[in-house]
C-alpha cells in the first residue's frame, strides 16, 4: 500500500430534483463533467471509473456514462451497496490509488428515484406481510430505531422533529438542495404522520441526483500543481453490521457506525472533538439523533441535549448537515455518498457561501446502507 495520501482534486454535484425525462447515465455524465472541470482535467486523464448506482446495478451505468463523455477504454467498476453505494464507489477509487495501481480516478454516484415509500420487499409465502407482521417500510424501520433511543434515553417526538427544523433551515442556504424551505417546529410536528415518530417532513425526499469526484495520488497532484485546492482523504472506512441480538427483526444502523467511526478516528489520528463539520446519514430525523452518539459527537444519551442546545446548527460547536441533509437536500441513494464529499470539500475549500462553516479544516461524511453497510470518510482541507 502506498504511504502517500490520496486527494480529492475535483468534485461537484448537480442540483438535486426530479428529472423524469432524463436517463441515469445522462445525470451521471453531467456530474462527471462538472467534477472534471472543477479539477481542470478531462476524461482522457482518468485511469479508472468507479460508478455507484443502486436501482440499475445490473445495467452498466459507468460504461454508459463513458459512452456519453468519452470511451477511453479505462477500467470501469459498477458498485451497489444500498444507501452506502456512493461512498463505496468513492472508497474503491481511493483504494485503487492507495494500492498504487492508478494516480487519477473518477468516482460517480447517480440515482433516479421513484416516488413513495421505500422498503417492504417480497415474501416467500403467497400473501403480503406488510401490516401483518409489523411494518417494514423505511420510515417504520427508522421510527423503531428512534423509539429504541427514546426508550433508553427519554428522547421526545419534539426533539426528533427539531432535527428536521434544523436541516430544512440549513437547506435555505444551499442552492443545490432539492428543497429550500423553512419548516417551523409546529409545521414539522403537524405534518402528515408517516410512522410515529417520523412525520412527512422528517423523512428524506426521494429525488434524482448525481455527484462526482476526481481522486488523485499525492505525487500526481504535486506534479500537476493542484495541491492548492486539494482536499486530503484522512480516513476511508467501510464496515458491515456486526452481530446483534435483535438483528433479524431490527436492522442495526448503530453498531456498524460505531465500528466505522472508531476505525476512522484511528486512521486519521484525530478525535471527534477535532471535527469542524459532519454530514451524516439523516435518512429520517430519528436517525440523526442516533448518529450523534454513534459518531462520538456527544456522550451516550446526550444527543437530544446536543441538538436542543444548538451545537449542531450552523454556527454551533459541531455543525451537522449544513447542506440540508438527506431530509432537505434530498437522498438519491447512489449519489448521496459522493454528494456529502462535495459538501464537506466545499467547506474545507472555503467555497460554501452563506452556509460556510467558518475556518473549517476537518470534516466527516457518513452514510448507512440498510442491511447494513456504513461508509465514513474524514477529509482535511488545504493549507
Amino acid at each position, binding site marked *: 500500500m502506498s504511504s502517500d495520501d490520496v486527494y480529492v482534486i475535483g468534485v461537484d454535484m448537480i442540483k438535486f430534483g426530479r428529472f423524469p425525462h432524463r436517463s441515469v447515465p445522462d445525470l451521471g455524465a453531467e456530474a462527471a463533467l462538472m467534477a472534471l472541470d472543477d479539477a481542470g482535467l478531462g476524461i482522457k486523464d482518468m485511469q479508472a471509473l468507479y460508478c455507484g448506482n443502486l436501482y440499475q446495478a445490473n445495467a452498466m451505468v459507468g460504461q454508459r456514462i463513458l459512452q456519453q463523455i468519452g470511451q477511453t477504454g479505462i477500467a470501469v467498476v459498477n458498485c451497489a451497496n444500498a444507501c452506502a453505494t456512493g461512498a463505496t464507489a468513492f472508497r474503491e477509487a481511493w483504494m485503487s490509488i492507495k494500492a498504487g495501481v492508478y494516480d487519477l480516478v473518477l468516482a460517480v454516484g447517480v440515482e433516479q428515484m421513484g416516488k413513495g415509500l421505500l422498503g417492504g420487499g417480497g415474501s416467500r409465502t403467497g400473501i403480503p406481510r406488510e401490516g401483518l407482521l409489523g411494518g417494514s417500510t423505511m420510515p417504520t424501520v427508522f421510527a423503531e430505531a428512534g423509539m429504541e433511543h427514546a426508550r433508553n434515553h427519554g428522547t421526545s417526538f419534539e426533539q426528533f422533529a427539531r432535527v428536521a427544523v434544523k436541516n430544512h433551515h440549513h437547506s435555505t442556504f444551499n442552492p443545490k438542495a432539492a428543497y429550500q424551505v423553512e419548516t417551523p417546529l409546529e409545521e414539522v410536528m403537524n405534518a402528515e404522520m408517516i*410512522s410515529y415518530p417520523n412525520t412527512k417532513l422528517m423523512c428524506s425526499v426521494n429525488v434524482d441526483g448525481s455527484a462526482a469526484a476526481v481522486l488523485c495520488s499525492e505525487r500526481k497532484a504535486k506534479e500537476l500543481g493542484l495541491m492548492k485546492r486539494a482536499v486530503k482523504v484522512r480516513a476511508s472506512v467501510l464496515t458491515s453490521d456486526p452481530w446483534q441480538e435483535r438483528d*433479524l427483526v431490527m436492522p442495526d444502523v448503530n453498531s456498524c457506525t460505531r465500528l466505522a467511526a472508531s476505525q476512522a478516528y484511528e486512521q486519521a489520528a484525530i478525535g471527534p472533538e477535532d471535527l469542524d463539520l459532519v454530514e451524516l446519514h439523516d435518512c429520517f430525523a430519528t436517525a440523526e439523533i442516533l448518529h450523534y452518539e454513534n459518531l462520538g459527537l456527544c456522550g451516550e444519551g446526550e444527543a437530544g441535549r446536543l441538538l436542543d442546545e444548538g451545537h449542531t446548527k450552523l454556527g454551533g460547536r459541531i455543525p451537522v448537515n449544513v447542506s440540508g441533509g438527506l431530509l432537505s437536500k434530498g437522498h438519491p441513494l447512489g449519489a448521496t455518498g459522493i454528494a456529502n464529499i462535495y459538501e464537506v470539500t466545499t467547506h474545507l475549500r472555503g467555497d460554501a457561501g452563506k452556509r460556510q462553516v467558518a475556518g473549517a479544516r476537518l470534516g466527516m461524511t457518513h452514510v448507512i446502507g440498510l442491511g447494513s453497510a456504513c461508509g465514513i470518510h474524514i477529509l482535511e482541507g488545504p493549507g
Partner: protein
Amino acid sequence: MSSAQTGPLPVVDHLVIPEDGAPYLEASKCRACGAVYLGRRDVCSRCAERDQMETMRLADTGTLYSYAIVHRSFPGVDVPFVSAIVDLDGGGTIKGNLMDIEPNPDHIEFGMPVKVVFRDALGRKDKDGNSYLSYFFVPGGDEP
C-alpha cells in the same frame, strides 16, 4: 385454480402448526454461544460455529422492546397499526402487529408485557384461495 387446503398455512416458516395442539414459533439456538435465530439454520453468525444449532420452541410471552405507529403504508394495508418489536421470555426477538391497543403513544409503554397469539392473517388469502395463520401481540397476556 387448485383447491384450497383444509387448514391454514403458516405465514412464516418458523410458525409451526402441529397436527394436534397449539401453534408455536420455532427458533434455533447456538449451543456454543447461545445466540437465537428464527427458524432453522446450520451456522451461527455470531460465533461462526457450524453444526451447533439446536431447535427450540419460543415462548408466547414477552415484553415490548420498541415500536412504531404506522400511519402510511402500501396501498391496501389497513392503517394505523402498531409495528412492535418484542423480546420473548427465555430468548428471541420477533416483530409483529400489536393488536387490541389504541395506536397512540400515550397508551403504549416500553417494557409492557405482551402475549403472542395466533390468529387468521387478517383475511389475506393467496391466489389459490389459501388462508394463513399469523402471529400477533396483545397487551398484558390476556387474550379476550
